[in-house]
C-alpha cells in the first residue's frame, strides 16, 4: 500500500480540454454509466431493500398489534400495499434498464462486454485476477465476463421474481391490470405447479438476490480499493478513470 501512496504524491494536477481537473495526462475520464443508468440503479437498489423487508413481513408477520378491541391500523394490508407499489417501481426499473441495454446508443459499451463474455482468454485472466495470480485483463466493454455472467443471472432472477410476483398480484387485485393479467398469469401458475409453489419460488428467488447483493457489494468495494479506477464513484458520478496507453 505504501508504494502506491508515494506514486500518487508525484502526480501533478492539470486541466483537460473540457475544462475538467485531471491528475495525469496518462489517466483519462470516461463516461461509464449514463444518467438514466445511474438513476435506475439506485431506484432499483432501494426498491430491492424495501421489497426484501416488506416481503419478510408478508411471509411471517412478526409485528402484530396486541389482541384488543381497539380500532386497528391495518398493518398487514399496509405492508402488502407498499410491497406491491415498490414492486411496480422495481418492474419499471428493470424494464427501463433492459431497454437501455438493448437499444440505447450511450449503452454501446455495455453491449461490447458481450465480446469479452465469449472470449475464453479474458475469462481465464479474469478468474486469475480474482485468484491473485495474474493482471486484470483488458476489457472491450464495461463489464468483465464474470460480472456479466452474474448480472445475467441477476436478471434471470429478477424476471422470475416479476413473473411470480405478478401471479401473486393478480390474486390480490382483480380489477384493472389484475384483471388484464389474470388469465395469462394463471396459465403460468399452472406451469409452475400451483399458487403455493409460486409463492415459495418467489421466496427462494429473493434469497438468490440477497446473495447477489452481498457478492456485488464486495466485488465493487474490492475493485475500488485495488484497481483504483473510481469503481464505486462511477455509479454515482457516471465516470471512471482509465490509464491511457
Amino acid at each position, binding site marked *: 500500500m505504501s508504494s502506491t501512496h508515494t506514486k500518487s504524491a508525484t502526480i501533478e494536477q492539470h486541466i483537460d480540454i473540457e475544462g475538467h481537473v485531471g491528475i495525469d495526462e496518462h489517466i483519462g475520464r470516461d463516461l461509464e454509466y449514463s444518467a438514466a443508468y445511474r438513476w435506475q440503479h439506485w431506484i432499483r437498489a432501494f426498491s430491492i431493500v424495501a421489497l426484501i423487508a416488506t416481503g419478510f413481513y408478508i411471509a411471517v408477520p412478526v409485528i402484530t398489534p396486541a389482541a384488543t378491541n381497539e380500532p386497528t391500523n391495518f398493518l398487514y*394490508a399496509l*405492508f402488502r400495499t407498499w410491497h406491491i407499489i415498490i414492486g411496480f417501481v422495481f418492474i419499471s426499473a428493470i424494464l427501463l434498464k433492459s431497454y437501455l441495454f438493448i437499444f440505447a446508443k450511450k449503452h454501446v459499451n455495455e453491449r461490447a462486454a458481450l465480446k469479452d463474455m465469449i472470449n475464453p482468454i479474458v475469462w481465464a485472466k479474469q478468474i486469475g485476477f480474482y485468484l491473485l495470480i495474474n493482471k486484470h485483463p483488458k476489457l472491450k466493454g464495461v463489464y468483465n465476463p464474470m460480472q456479466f455472467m452474474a448480472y445475467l443471472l441477476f436478471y434471470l432472477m429478477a424476471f422470475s421474481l416479476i413473473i411470480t410476483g405478478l401471479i401473486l398480484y393478480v390474486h390480490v387485485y382483480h380489477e384493472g391490470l389484475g384483471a388484464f393479467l389474470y388469465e395469462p398469469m394463471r396459465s403460468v401458475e399452472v406451469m409452475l405447479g400451483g399458487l403455493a409453489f409460486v409463492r415459495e419460488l418467489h421466496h427462494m428467488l429473493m434469497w438468490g438476490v440477497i446473495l447477489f447483493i452481498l457478492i456485488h457489494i464486495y466485488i465493487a468495494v474490492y475493485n475500488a480499493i485495488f484497481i483504483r479506477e473510481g469503481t464505486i464513484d462511477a455509479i454515482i458520478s457516471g465516470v471512471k478513470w482509465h490509464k491511457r496507453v
Partner: protein
Amino acid sequence: MQSNSLFEKMSSRLDELSILPKLDEAVSIPQLIEEKGFSRREFMGWAAAMTSMLMLPANFTPLVAKAAELADRLPLVWLHMAECTGCSESLLRSSSPSIDSLIFDYISLEYHETIMAASGWQAEQNLEHAMEKYKGKYILMVEGGIPQGLSDFYLTVGAHGKTGEKHAKEAAENAAAIFAIGTCSSFGGVQAAAPNPTNAQPLSKITNKTVINVPGCPPSESNIVGTLVHFILYGTLPALDIYNRPKWAYGLRIHDACERRGRFDAGEFVQQFGDEGAKKGFCLYKVGCKGPYTFNNCSKQKFNQGTSWPIQSGHGCMGCSEPNFWDTMGIVHEPLANRLYHTTFGGLGSDATADKIGLGLLTVTAVAIAAHAAISVLKNPEV
C-alpha cells in the same frame, strides 16, 4: 335479452328431459322431499340458494327447482377408486338429511358401490348393464385416485378382479359427461403424494375425454349437487378454470371471501392455538392457514348443511382442493414460509426452511468473502 334466450334454452332442455322415463314411476322427487318433512317453501328456498350459487338471476329459481325435480331422469354411474369414500359420506351421512342429500339419494343412481343393494357378480352385471343401456347418456362420477400402468394391480374392483384403471376407462368411454368428485380423482390426492407408491393418477390422466374436476377433501355437498344441477340445466359443461374446475365454485380463493379476511389485513393473527387471538377469531395465517393458495367456495357454502367450515371452527385451511396439496402446502399448522425441504443439498439442508438455507448460504458466502479479502490485503492483486 341474453338471459331471456338462456331461460328459453334451459326451459326447452328441461321439457326434453321431463319426457324421459323416471327411475320409479310410483315416486317423484317433489313427493319424496315433502314426505321427508320439507315444505314446498323450504324447497323453493333451497332452489333460490342454488340459483344464486350457480350465478344465475333470481327469476331462474323455478327452473332450478324443476331441474332438481327432474334429477331422477338422468342415469348416473358412480365409481369408487382408491379413496376413503369421504366424498360420498359428505353427501350421505348427515344427521338431518339436507335437500341436497335427498336429491342425491334419489337420482337415478345406476351404480354406486356404497349404497347399492347388489353385490359380487350381480353388482358387476348391473354396471355393465347400465353402461350398455344408457350408452352415451349417463353421467359418470368418479371418486378416488387411480393406480395407473404397471401399478394398476394396486386397485382391483369386483368379482372379476378388474383393475380400477380398466373400470374407469370403460365407463368414461360412453359417458355423456364425466365428473371427478373429490381431490383424489381430480388431482390424485393424498395417495398420489410423494413418493406415490401406487402411482395413483387423477381421472384426467386415465381418460382422454374432458373431465370436470370437483375437488375438495371432501367437496361440499352443494358443490357436488350443484355440478349435477348445472349439467341438468345446461346440458353442457360449465365454465372452467385453469384446472378444469367449475368457475362458479372454484373461481375465487378461500382467502378472497374469508370471514376472517379483515383480521388478516389488520395484521391480527392467532400466534398459537388457544391464545387470546384465537378466542377473538383472529386470522389463522400464522398457524398454517393455506387459504391464500386455495381456490374454493367453502366460506360461502360451508359444510354439514351450512353449519360451519374449517376456518369458522378455528382451524386453518389445508388447501385440500389444490393439486398436490399434500406436497406443496407444507406443514399443516405452520405458514408456508416454514416449509421444510427434506432432501436439499443431499441431506445437508435437511428439515430446514428456505430462510435457514438462505442464511446458511449467506454465511458461507460471507466467510468466503472475508477469506478472499484477507488474502488480497496480504498479497496485493496485480493490476
